[in-house]
């Protein structure tokens, strides 16, 4: 653990993209872990298909966290990088860094210049995750289908809302899932953050990095409003569609429907 009171400030990594390899590694570590936090949050939201109605407060807080990450990633440009890498079918759970690594406290003699060893994502399956905090086994199974983000969870809200609306007023919301999908502005087809990033950072080891310290010590940049995000992302979507080369919307909707109906 860091000595008390010494929080790492992220700002030094962000200022100038200089050639200092240590700085780049710090910054990319941060990005990696922010990505993992995003993935963790999305999985939490997707897990809301239980027999009992999910806790709305928890869902709202997680969704707000995701929105916050997205806004920040949009501002420093990582969001478009992510949005462009749509070909993979990798689900968020595949990219989960083992909890024990994410949340491992840094050694006392933390030194930025210390050479990092390689961490590979293949190692991060349920077998190698020893910590009892590790995400459930079922989550670590790679999904072969196009992963969804929030749509499924928003679909849940929307579904509840739709039923309530149909009780209150007789007009119906035609496609709550689609609207839900649109809410977080992720018109990207597969909407998966992805392994193009992995290749970029394959020589980076985050194992000695304390996510807690990093993220809690971070200074966030001023954000756009949430609806600006929707606008900016939706304006990206045509270019993204052309990149991916698949039929994003239909596949995405099918997957959403499966999740909502299948539970």
């Amino acid at each position, binding site marked *: *653990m*860091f*000595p*008390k009171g010494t929080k790492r400030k992220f700002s030094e990594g962000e200022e100038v993209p200089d050639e200092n390899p240590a700085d780049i590694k710090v910054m990319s570590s941060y990005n990696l872990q*922010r990505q993992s*936090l995003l993935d*963790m949050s999305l999985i*939490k939201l997707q897990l809301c298909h239980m*027999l*009992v*109605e999910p*806790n*709305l*407060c*928890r869902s*709202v*807080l997680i*969704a*707000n*966290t995701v*929105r*916050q*990450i997205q806004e920040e990633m949009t501002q420093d440009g990582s969001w478009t990088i992510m949005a462009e890498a749509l070909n993979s079918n990798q689900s968020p759970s595949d990219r989960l860094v083992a*909890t024990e690594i*994410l*949340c491992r406290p840094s050694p006392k003699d933390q030194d930025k210049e210390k050479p990092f060893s390689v961490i590979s994502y293949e190692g991060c399956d349920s077998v190698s995750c020893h910590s009892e*905090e590790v*995400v459930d086994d079922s989550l670590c199974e790679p999904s072969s289908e196009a992963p969804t983000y929030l749509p499924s969870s*928003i679909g849940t*809200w*929307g*579904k*509840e*809302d739709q*039923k*309530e609306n149909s009780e209150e007023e007789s007009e119906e919301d035609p496609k709550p899932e689609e*609207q*839900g999908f*649109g*809410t977080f502005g992720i018109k990207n087809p597969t909407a998966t953050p992805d392994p193009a990033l992995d290749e970029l950072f394959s020589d980076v080891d985050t194992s000695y990095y*304390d*996510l*807690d*310290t990093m*993220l*809690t*010590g*971070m*200074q*966030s940049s001023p954000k756009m409003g*949430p609806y600006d995000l929707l606008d900016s992302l939706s304006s990206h979507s045509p270019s993204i569609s052309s990149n991916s080369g698949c039929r994003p919307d239909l596949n995405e909707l099918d997957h959403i429907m499966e999740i909502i109906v299948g539970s």
Partner: protein
Amino acid sequence: LTTLSRTPHTRMLNPIQVLCSDITALSLEPKQFASYTEADIISTVEFNLTGELLATGDKGGRVVIFQREPESKNEPNCQGEYNVYSTFQSHEPEFDYLKSLEIEEKINKIRWLPQQNAAHFLLSTNDKTIKLWKVSERDKRPEGYNLKDEEGRLKGLSTVTSLQVPVLMPMDLMVEVSPRRIFANAHTYHVNSISVNSDCETYMSADDLRINLWHLGITDRSFNIVDIKPANMEELTEVITAAEFHPYHCNLFVYSSSKGTLRLCDMRASALCDKHSKLFEEPEDPSNRSFFSEIISSISDVKFSHSGRYLLTRDYLTVNVWDLNMESKPIETYQVHDYLRSKLCSLYENDCIFDKFECAWNGTDSVIMTGAYNNFFRMFDRNTKRDVTLEASRESSKPRAVLKPRRVCTGGKRRKDDISVDSLDFTKKILHTAWHPAENIIAIAATNNLYIFQDKVSSEMH
């Protein structure tokens, strides 16, 4: 200011003594089984307005009421202990066929009504339905009916040769509980709070997005007084987390949100209290900003002080005292377990960051209490600024045993018996605590166990 009369039996103790002297376990009411089922997990604890009765609700939908035994002069060591008075099944699991979802029978909240006759009344609620229960005693029964025999069977008319007047005969005390009102179908979202108005005629129930006002006598209608549901659900970013009526201004109530705000509303201002009269919000500390800032600012409980002047709120890491006259920031902030601030990522991952801790005032509003992890609970004396950490566990709480203050060490010098942050058991959480309205008696729910502690000084008096 209230002046307390000093009589030998009801002398109010100096609350400082709660902290610097010792707390003894008054009675221990653990469930008897070594391993418990999830249904036994206590989900709410509430003293009635005199403190004579203590009600607990659990995940299985049961309510257990404890009654304090009157203190006996013959046995000076036997202070009033709490014993089981009544147990009943309040709510049953239900299934919502429209949404294909189960409705849990877990009791979210219990609130007592002020006593107006020999019977006691309480409100209990699960996620969807609020029920009014009447708790009454029967210690006499009529005997000597003309038309019925002792077993209640009708007598043949030809056998009746004389008339008698039925007489009330004593019987063993029986506590009867019956549902008097069922307030259903008014909440689309999960009810998190109920609060009885000081007018004793109305009460409110709050769910994630709406607050309804009820008349205690009318079950087929309720009045919506707060609605924060956005027209487009995808725009939802904030929910209601707790709500409470002012202790004596029947037109005022407060509700808290997941964004860490408090809104004081006046029902005289308009029918739908969507515009608050006051908004209490502490500006965010930019140096502490993180992705978890909003989550840890979410208020899990709000309580008016007995005086009606202050508000007590609990968020993930702190308890705050607000003055109703100052909206810009709390007047006092107490750190409950700041050593968790560097562990927020892990706590987010295992969902502990969403735990909803309650908070409580003592009878004189000078000491506040809240729970934490590892079966620890904390008390803060507002006057002396002293605080203490205590543990609710079988080992440390034999009857008449004195509770030892605990310490969590965060690095630096470690004393014997200190617990390190990494050894804390996050599955042992004290979410529900209650303080007797007048005396220094506290009730602590630790998973499936209920602990009742009393200030040792008061116990030495008798």
